[in-house]
């Protein structure tokens, strides 16, 4: 409906027939200006056409150009682009200079347009393949982002195999709406839901302290194979991401996968072999006969029962000690060394018209807990085809099979998860099976964690297909104007199967539910489609105007069915082999569509002005027909490109400012007040949900203003990028507390405004650049401050587990991330989850051309966690420091839980971490025809951490980050990261790498 058909036809008529003119062959060589090494992979292109080629392994190229061609464009990632004037000679020798400040890098700003970094108005973070996985690969894609995105707070939810990461760009974007960025892979919207396996049926985690689901499933973004990624661009907020519409309020991560290049077929084989180990163990309490006895009650307790029990424990301890049977169960549980095997094979190449990239990857890892692990098989085929000089088509397809065995961790109320059971299990009890394989009953907990580990299963298996196409047509071409049509569409389908099995002979099952088999099946289909017209009009030598108009549509349908069988037939997992079954189903469906126009004006290649507007609607809004309007505008002025500028040494000086709005649609179902199934005695019943819907719900509106200064001096060897932003969330969507006496615990409401202000500084240095030693260094520093600027509802606690244990508390005029808790009998401010600042430090040293050392240090300063892991070990009398004395001779483990001071468990979670360190060697090859390159390397990921935090890891989140909300269970919210309740401990990894190119 956007473009009347007549105008489309007019545009098409403008296309002239392809002229077939005489041809001329040009060949040449391309070299690095400093080292003199040939550069393979450089693009050589005839301007304003699809005609071009790529340099081969020796830097050579041959290209046939229409006669009369005046210029060639030469470009390559990481090098300065050049325009080469053709002087009639058919042979060219080109030297390229490295683009240290990345000024010529092309950045995607709209859905169909790009801009050079030197003209960019936003701070867009880019991560190259080398930065993503080239140092020390993480287990999953999401984990590989940690520490690499200035302005983002990236937190691993747990160490369980298969990932689970929270990414928050520029503070709190939303509390109950989507707080996680949109992932777009080659134009396909990539679903990143976390779907619980139904473990809550066993753990009862959400049944008392906090109704939010705490299964902590993996995020589906983890399915993506990091080795396929060529480049990532991160649009952090509405000022940059507005063109992506409603799903982009929390930022957009634009992922481009590798594409084939014209020329010889390149085969690359990579093998990673390594191990994972627990990053840190908290330690356990060393009991003595006396402290063992104290478990029953104080020595002066007059109750004869207590005294009898004291003696029994004393006896038990002494017997165990004499038999040498004192165990460190924490070590036994989490102390495994897991093997990492990761094999990748890729083929890429192609001819003039068609190029392809084909890759396969197999990753297999064992976890730090027995019977846990991660397995991922993926294949990808990307094909690009030029139908003609004017029409090109790209197709990307990928299939992923992933399987994660994640154990049973996190909060639970039944004493069944590994950590909770361990927290009350002292070292003098023997939990090991006898020689018949029978596990003793654990008298100190509801379960024997060794038995649970060995007999249970918690598996997530995903089969996923992602496919998309990109059609680009040069509709019209003249000296001054060029018009393109871009059509793009994609499908993301997955089947996600969860299987949790707890056999009936487990300690906690045998006398109660007698076994659980929880089988979940989810089918999810997301589609997105868009069509864009982009016209570039050269008004004069000095001014270029780019106009874009387009329409987008996204749909989604998810169907999640979980069947729970209890009272199982012995040895069976089929839900049919059970005495009782219950089935739950949750479906959600949405349709979002948007229209937009954008104008970009570039003057003198120095001043960029752009403006655009987007209209969005969604079926999740109260009024599904209404279009909401979101404008954006941007300005940048690169002073060094002005004529008057002649200060030597300063190569780039740019002022920039951008403003944009975007909407975050309400979650599915927020406009309804549901009646949930609630049966009794075989009769079907419906009970009003305690969450009141709101038929007037509308999207929360984000407005973001950012401004900054970019400077690079000394030929780009020192570059500084400084950005300030002010991001406001208007009409923030809250599931806010109602007085319980209304019958509703909470209500959906657009309840106020939030603000995030922050600073991002990036400094890129090349301190040394000689043929034999090259040192690149990037330092990023960033901070964010969030504040609730308006709240039209009373302040309220949104979790974690009540005031006495510290809770996030939304209150006007206070930081959105503040933590309040009961101290004495008062509710006081006791912490803030937001870091004071974060800093990352990436270095790459290239020595004698073939050695390279890379490392990334990440410092998070400040930001508090609610450490309930320590609370549970205190309550279970197993904290490592339990017997240390404090406050006038009280044992720490006794003092802390009884002090009536919630601030004790709200603890600073600062850390300094060497996220990645790797040393690689390119084996110099001589006189080989088959093998083109051999790489060897060693790497370590998350290996060294300095922190005072007591838990397993300062990065933790009991509630996950984007767990879906179903009719009967509440998902994650945008605030509750940093709640630590017996997580799967974080791991560290080290690997050896071999890569061979043929």
């Amino acid at each position, binding site marked *: 409906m956007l*473009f009347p058909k007549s105008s489309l036809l007019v545009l098409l008529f403008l296309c002239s027939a392809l002229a077939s003119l005489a041809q001329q062959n040009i060949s040449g060589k391309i070299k690095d200006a400093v080292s003199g090494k040939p550069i393979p992979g450089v693009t050589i292109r005839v301007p304003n056409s699809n005609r071009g080629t790529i340099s081969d392994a020796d830097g050579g190229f041959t290209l046939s150009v229409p006669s009369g061609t005046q210029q060639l464009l030469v470009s390559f990632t990481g090098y300065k682009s050049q325009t080469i004037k053709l002087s009639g000679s058919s042979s060219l020798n080109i030297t390229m200079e490295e683009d240290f400040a990345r000024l010529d890098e092309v950045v995607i700003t709209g859905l169909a347009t790009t801009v050079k970094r030197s003209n960019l108005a936003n701070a867009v973070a880019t991560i190259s393949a080398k930065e993503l996985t080239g140092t020390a690969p993480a287990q999953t894609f999401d984990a590989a982002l940690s520490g690499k995105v200035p302005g983002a707070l990236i937190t691993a939810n747990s160490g369980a195999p298969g990932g689970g990461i929270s990414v928050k760009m520029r503070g709190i974007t939303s509390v109950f709406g989507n707080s996680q960025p949109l992932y777009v892979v080659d134009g396909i919207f990539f679903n990143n839901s976390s779907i619980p396996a139904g473990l809550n049926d066993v753990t009862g985690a959400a049944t008392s302290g906090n109704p939010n689901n705490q299964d902590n499933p993996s995020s589906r973004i983890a399915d993506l194979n990091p080795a396929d990624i060529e480049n990532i661009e991160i649009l952090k907020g509405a000022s940059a991401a507005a063109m992506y519409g409603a799903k982009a309020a929390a930022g957009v991560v634009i992922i481009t996968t590798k594409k084939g290049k014209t020329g010889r077929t390149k085969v690359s084989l990579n093998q990673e072999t390594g191990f994972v180990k627990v990053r840190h163990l908290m330690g356990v309490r060393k009991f003595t006969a006396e402290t063992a006895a104290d478990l029953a*009650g104080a020595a002066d307790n007059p109750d004869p*029962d207590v005294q009898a029990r004291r003696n029994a424990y004393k006896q038990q301890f002494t017997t165990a000690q004499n038999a040498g049977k004192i165990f460190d169960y924490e070590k036994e549980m989490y102390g495994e060394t897991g093997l990492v095997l990761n094999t990748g094979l890729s083929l890429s190449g192609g001819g003039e018209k068609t190029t392809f990239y084909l890759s396969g990857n197999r990753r297999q890892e064992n976890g730090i807990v027995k019977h846990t692990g991660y397995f991922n098989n993926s294949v990808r085929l990307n094909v690009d085809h030029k139908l003609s000089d004017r029409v090109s088509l790209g197709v990307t397809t990928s299939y992923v099979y992933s399987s994660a065995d994640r154990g049973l961790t996190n*909060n639970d109320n039944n004493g069944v998860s590994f950590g909770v*059971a361990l927290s*009350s299990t002292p070292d003098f009890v023997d939990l090991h099976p006898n020689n018949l394989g029978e596990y003793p009953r654990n008298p100190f907990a509801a379960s024997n964690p060794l038995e649970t580990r060995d007999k249970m299963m918690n598996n997530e298996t995903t089969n996923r297909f992602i496919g998309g196409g990109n059609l680009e047509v040069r509709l019209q071409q003249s000296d001054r104007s060029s018009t393109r049509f871009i059509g793009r569409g994609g499908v993301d389908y997955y089947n996600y199967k969860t299987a949790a099995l707890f056999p009936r002979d487990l300690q906690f099952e045998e006398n109660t539910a007698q076994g659980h088999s929880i089988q979940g099946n989810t089918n999810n289909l997301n589609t997105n489609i868009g069509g864009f017209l982009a016209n570039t009009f050269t008004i004069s030598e000095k001014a270029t105007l780019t106009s874009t108009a387009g329409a987008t549509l996204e749909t989604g349908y998810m169907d999640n069915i979980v069947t729970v069988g209890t009272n199982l037939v012995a040895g069976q997992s089929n839900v049919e082999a059970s005495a009782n079954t219950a089935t739950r189903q949750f479906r*959600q469906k949405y349709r979002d569509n948007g229209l937009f126009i954008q104008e970009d004006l570039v003057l003198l290649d120095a001043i960029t002005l752009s403006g655009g507007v987007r209209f969005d609607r969604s079926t999740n809004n109260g009024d599904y027909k209404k279009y909401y309007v979101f404008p954006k505008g941007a300005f940048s002025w690169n002073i060094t490109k002005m004529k008057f500028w002649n200060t030597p040494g300063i190569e780039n000086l740019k002022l920039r400012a951008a403003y944009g709005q975007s909407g975050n649609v309400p979650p599915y179902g927020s406009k309804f007040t549901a009646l949930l199934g609630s049966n009794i005695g075989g009769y079907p019943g419906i009970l*009003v949900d305690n969450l009141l819907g709101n038929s007037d719900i509308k999207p929360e509106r984000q407005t973001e203003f950012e401004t900054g200064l970019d400077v690079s001096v000394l030929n780009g060897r020192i570059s500084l990028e400084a950005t300030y932003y002010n991001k406001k969330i208007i009409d923030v969507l809250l599931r806010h507390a109602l007085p319980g006496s*209304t019958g509703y615990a909470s209500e959906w409401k657009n309840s106020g405004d939030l603000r995030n202000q922050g600073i991002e500084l990036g400094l890129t240095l090349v301190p040394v650049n000689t043929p034999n030693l090259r040192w690149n260094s990037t330092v990023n520093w960033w901070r964010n401050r969030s504040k609730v600027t308006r709240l039209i509802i009373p302040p309220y606690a949104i979790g974690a587990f009540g*005031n006495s244990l510290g809770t996030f508390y939304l209150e006007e005029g206070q930081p959105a991330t503040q933590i309040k808790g009961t101290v004495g009998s008062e509710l006081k401010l006791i912490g803030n989850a937001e870091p004071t600042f974060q800093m990352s430090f990436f270095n790459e040293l290239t020595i004698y051309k073939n050695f390279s050392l890379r490392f990334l240090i990440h410092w998070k300063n400040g930001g508090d966690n609610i450490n309930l892991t320590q609370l549970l070990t205190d309550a279970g009398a197993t904290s490592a420091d339990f017997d240390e004395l404090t406050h006038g001779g009280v044992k720490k483990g006794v003092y802390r839980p009884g002090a009536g001071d919630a601030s004790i468990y709200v603890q600073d979670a600062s850390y300094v971490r060497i996220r990645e360190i790797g040393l690689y060697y390119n084996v110099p090859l001589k006189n080989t025809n088959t093998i083109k390159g051999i790489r060897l390397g060693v790497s370590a990921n998350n290996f060294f951490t300095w922190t005072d935090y007591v838990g397993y890891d300062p990065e933790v989140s009991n509630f996950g980050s984007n767990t879906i909300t179903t009719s009967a269970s509440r998902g994650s919210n945008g605030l509750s990261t940093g709640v630590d309740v017996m997580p799967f401990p974080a791991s560290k990894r080290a690997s050896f790498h071999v890569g061979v190119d043929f």
Partner: protein
Amino acid sequence: MNKYISIISAFFLLLIMNACQKGEINSLNTPVVGGIISNPTRSDLFNLVTGAESGMRNSFAPYLDGTGIIGREIYRFSSAEPRYTTDLLGGGTKVLDNNTFYLTNPWNARYQVIRQCFILQGSVANAREEVASAAQKKAFTGFAKTLIGYQLLLNINMTDANGARIPVADGVAQGPVVTDPAVVLDSVLKFLDEGKADLTGSEVIFPLSDGFAGFKDAAGLLKFNRALAARVHVYRKNWAAALTALNESFFDLNGSFSMGIYHYFSTNGGDLANTMYLAPNGAGEVRVAHPSFVTDLVAGDDRINKTALRNASASQGGLTGNRDVVIWTSLNSPISIIRNEELILLYAEAKIQAGAIPDAIVALNRIRTGHNLPSYAGSATTAALINELLYNRRYSLFMEGHRWIDLRRYDRLGTLPKDRPDDDVWTKYPLPQSESNI
């Protein structure tokens, strides 16, 4: 070029078709409130009744645990939840939290059922004559009002002088927090009386679970309603009214103690299991009788069988118990709402307070002999009989949510033992944070 025109046109057509896809996406998972109120079918009404009955069980376990722990009937040990032994017993300097599960979960669940009952009434009012006749409609509303009264009673039992709000129908503005428990209890009585009026002469067509066995018709529900009223009248010290209500209830001095109305539980699909059941001799998650349970028990009293001696005593936080609570023997065991044994005790109490001592002693002896104790031989003074009554209420209604409230009624919370030096006996729960933050 022509072939590209067709490709592009097809692409655009597809896009336009999709973009023009119309229609709202409705709730795919559940019925929604608006729909069910406007024009209900008979099944809709039945489903709402079933939901209300079912909802009464939600978070009832933390109510029983909380009142049982504060009333020193039990200890609840949990490796996952230390607050059973800290907050609820006042361990260290801990106080009751106004924003956590042991308060907010039962509080919200009770008001949720009340909201459901108002929705049921609204729905019934809009039901066509063919769906339910006038007499049939009265049974729905009478049942709904009875439940409202009962659910409100449980909440004011928790917060007492910290107050509660009187629930109001959909769309009516909420009133203030009423901090005089007597006023709230009178409101409970008002709901019960209105329920009685509706149930009188009504016809029940809706199904109820077997927890209501014997009370599923209008006459039975009326007796249930009056039994609850008798309890509230006793709380309000309306002794005569209590005796009148007892007469209209299923009170039977010589009847079975267990006759009454129960929450039905089941492990069947879609139903709720009784989480008050914990396997005996379990570890980690344990519900043991407070040590005073046995020490205060008269020898020979068969009510000791509500607990069972453990193989090994259980401990947490410096507390130890050696008798598991075994009132509920499986995940399918029902939990009582009100039963004849309580009615006999209410009768005895009303008679004592009304000065009808011989009648009271007959009733107390009915309880004593029913539990393997000899007839009452103590003094016939009001004070002595009240002691005897409270003893019997403590053991007959063990872990049914009464002892703490009884001791508060008689101002005897000070007699409860504090097991650790810094422990406290709370007189009431705080008002939930969500009620005060307005």
